[in-house]
């Protein structure tokens, strides 16, 4: 019974990683950059919902919508101000700028919201699921998180496959130059990608702090890194890869905490990552790109 | 015995048989041409010969030793050097260093010798410099030895690549479209250089080329490739008159 509990909690944690990783992966696929600030957009999403719900006392739904709107705009603005001028610059310069944006967001949050922990009221109102005579309890947050991640993943896959914008995103990620020649507005497509990625980050943020309700300016940093690991794990650039990577990461993390060592859980997660990459250098679902000679 | 003897060389990518049962035999000192339409598999053959790809099947005998499936660096040590279709110089290194880096297997010293600047370092560096400058002189590049490779004009970059390949002291040189992007004057000059290299270094040369003037001008033997298979093989003048070759090139 405990095992099932560990597993379910791992899947729940992994689902949050998966949604964050989705944002990473989409942005990476198109802009070919690691958006290190992604984790901090999550944190901003959490704070916006917190403000609306707890400070202003409005409905959770409004909080969610506001967070998505704010994060979407934030994503677009970050892209316009920080990344767009650097298009064509060395990947390292972009990476460092992204890290800079990450620090910037953390410190803005520190200035606005202060360092004190804020306890987040869960947006989930469905009751916990009690099974097997109370031996196994699955929280409402867990259920919602898992369902939300599945829906988001299906929606994103359909979006990329079926819609014009989605296909444009695919085209830009394959070959920016060719896409431009085909009449696709590359800048707009990249903006849309950032918008979607950041909107997803808002949802991930709300789910994260609903399950783990301690909100600080640094809340997003570590899940951000973990999600980045998850994205690489699954094969960066791949939507189902992000999902698989995220959930696997969550499950491995929880099971190693449970059965190996709670102190070394992170080390184990990272070790598994390295082993996976040794066997499959481009992640589980990543495409191998052969260099043309 | 021929210097290079290739039998039944084959490789498939996915379902595509990029090279299928390729045979070739090149004598020492020969200037050999490999031609064919785009996508015929010419560069793939170079990649197979140099170990960039591992063949699914076939034998590559270099001087009596089968090098098929060996690593690139070992094939180079066995005596095959090449140039690339899209020039692959070490762009952020000087012209001289581009050649010196190719000389270091011959004038070898350890990393520690280099760090500590032991006497051997100075001795080897001196030898390397002399040898590299000698090679650069052959290609008329000695005047530009201290500039960055990326700052050389296009034609000279091609030449530098050949010089670098020669620096590894190969038995055989593979040139992948050496005249690509050159004007007729440069091509003419290149033809002279290739001949000169062959004569001075007693080098065996296999080259891929689209420029028929160059091919007919310097190649003694010719293999025509189409869809991964050998279409025709033999003396240049004969092969070029082969109706099948003409069809393959000009279409129906």
């Amino acid at each position, binding site marked *: 019974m405990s095992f099932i509990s560990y597993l379910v909690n791992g899947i729940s944690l992994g689902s949050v990683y998966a949604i964050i990783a989705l944002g990473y992966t989409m942005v990476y696929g198109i802009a070919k950059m690691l958006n290190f600030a992604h984790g901090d957009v999550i944190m901003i999403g959490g704070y916006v919902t917190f403000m609306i719900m707890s400070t202003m006392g409005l409905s959770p739904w409004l909080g969610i919508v506001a967070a998505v709107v704010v994060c979407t705009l934030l994503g677009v603005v970050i892209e316009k101000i920080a990344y767009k001028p650097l298009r064509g610059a060395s990947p390292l*310069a972009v990476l460092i700028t992204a890290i800079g944006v990450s620090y910037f967001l953390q410190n803005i949050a520190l200035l606005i919201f202060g360092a004190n922990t804020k306890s987040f009221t869960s947006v989930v109102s469905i009751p916990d699921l009690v099974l097997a005579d109370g031996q196994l309890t699955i929280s409402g947050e867990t259920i919602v998180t898992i369902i939300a991640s599945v829906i988001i993943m299906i929606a994103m896959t359909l979006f990329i496959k079926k819609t014009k914008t989605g296909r444009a995103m695919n085209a830009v990620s394959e070959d920016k130059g060719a896409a431009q020649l085909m009449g696709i507005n590359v800048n707009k497509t990249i903006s849309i990608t950032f918008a979607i990625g950041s909107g997803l980050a808002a949802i991930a943020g709300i789910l994260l702090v609903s399950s783990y309700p301690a909100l600080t300016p640094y809340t997003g940093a570590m899940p951000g*890194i973990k999600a980045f690991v998850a994205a690489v794990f699954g094969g960066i650039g791949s939507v189902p890869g992000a999902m698989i990577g995220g959930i696997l990461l969550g499950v491995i993390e929880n099971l190693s905490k449970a059965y190996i060592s709670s102190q070394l859980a992170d080390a184990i997660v990272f070790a598994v990552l390295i082993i996976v990459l040794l066997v499959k250098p481009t992640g589980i679902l990543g495409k191998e790109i052969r260099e043309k000679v | 015995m021929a210097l290079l003897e290739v039998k039944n060389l084959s490789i498939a990518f996915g379902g595509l048989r990029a090279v299928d049962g390729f045979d070739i035999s090149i004598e020492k000192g020969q200037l050999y041409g490999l031609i064919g339409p785009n996508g015929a598999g010419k560069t793939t053959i170079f990649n197979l010969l140099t170990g960039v790809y591992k063949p699914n099947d076939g034998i590559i005998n270099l001087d009596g030793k089968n090098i098929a499936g060996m690593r690139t660096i070992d094939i180079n040590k066995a005596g095959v050097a090449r140039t690339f279709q899209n020039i692959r110089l070490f762009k952020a290194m000087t012209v001289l260093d581009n050649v010196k*880096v190719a000389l270091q297997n011959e004038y070898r010293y350890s990393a520690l010798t280099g760090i500590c600047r032991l006497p051997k370092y100075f001795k080897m560096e001196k030898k390397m410099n002399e040898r590299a400058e000698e090679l650069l002189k052959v290609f008329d590049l000695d005047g530009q030895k201290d500039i960055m490779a990326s700052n050389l004009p296009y034609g000279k970059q091609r030449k530098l690549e050949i010089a670098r390949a020669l620096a590894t002291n190969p038995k055989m040189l593979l040139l992948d479209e050496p005249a690509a992007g050159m004007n007729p004057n440069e091509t003419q000059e290149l033809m002279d250089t290739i001949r000169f290299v062959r004569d001075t270094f007693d080098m065996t040369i296999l080259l891929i080329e689209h420029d028929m003037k160059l091919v007919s001008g310097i190649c003694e033997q010719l293999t025509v490739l189409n869809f991964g298979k050998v279409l025709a093989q033999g003396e240049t003048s004969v092969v070029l008159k082969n109706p099948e070759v003409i069809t393959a090139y000009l279409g129906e």
Partner: protein
Amino acid sequence: MKKKIGMNKSTYNNMITLGIVVAAYIIIQILISTGSVSSLMEGLLVPLCVYVILAISLNLTVGILGELSLGHAGFMCVGAFASAFFSRLTEDLITATYLRFLIALIIGAVCAAIFGIIIAVPVLRLKGDYLAITTLAFGEIIKNVVNVMYVGKDSTGIHFSMKNAMDLNLKEGGDVIIKGAQGITGTPTDSNFTIGIILVLVTMIVVMNIIKSSTGRAITSIRDNRIAAESIGINITKYKVITFAISAAFAGVAGVLYSHNLSTLTATPKNFGYNMSILILVFVVLGGMGNIRGSMIAAIVLTLIPEYLRFMQDYRMLHKRKGAE
């Protein structure tokens, strides 16, 4: 006529860089002796040497070899802990400070180099961001493991545990040297500015000499064009391993300097986590890839700016971002 191998432009440049370091050392020593250096500056001298060494050594991997490494702080951590452990262990045995520090230095460098080699193995298969994440993962593993490591000594020898200090079962009078998250305390503060400068010079000379030797040319050729490098017989594996080992060894040296400057050593996300690795990377990128003097200047400037901007505390982090742009 100049010698064939001698004062060409890059040698001249290197001489200037070394000259700057020596001149800076002399000037600062004079200022210290006249008492006109602030306590802050005096306290920063050794850390500055640490960061300069880190930046230069990472430049070898990132700038010269062209591989993105986000685990440099992990090597520093290995060097710091290995050497501090040694110094604590032999504090009473070896009383000659310089001898003890020299041995600690070698131990730190060698241990870090071994880890560098271990990491280089997966590196050979991976490229770009996958490599970056692997190095980050290694760094985090090192930090995580160090945090649960307990090592103590007593009359029966050295004991090791991954659980807690009680698990060591030390005899009466035993001494727990590495106490998990509490790290190592009471490391003798053997390092000083003069040692720091000597190590900076050694690092610079070694890196400069590598760059201007066949090893350096091979490494650069791999960065510029791996396929072409292979085609002329450059052993990619060998040179990547050499680069990682040397780079890690000097990160280890920086760690030794670091751990012998403060009396307490713990592995926190701040000092040995990926944040530190990224900070070092920022030094390298802002200083210019492959540019040793640039790395040095960037490390110094970016370490000094926040310290001299302390009066605007809360806004301090903001300008770091501006710097990155």
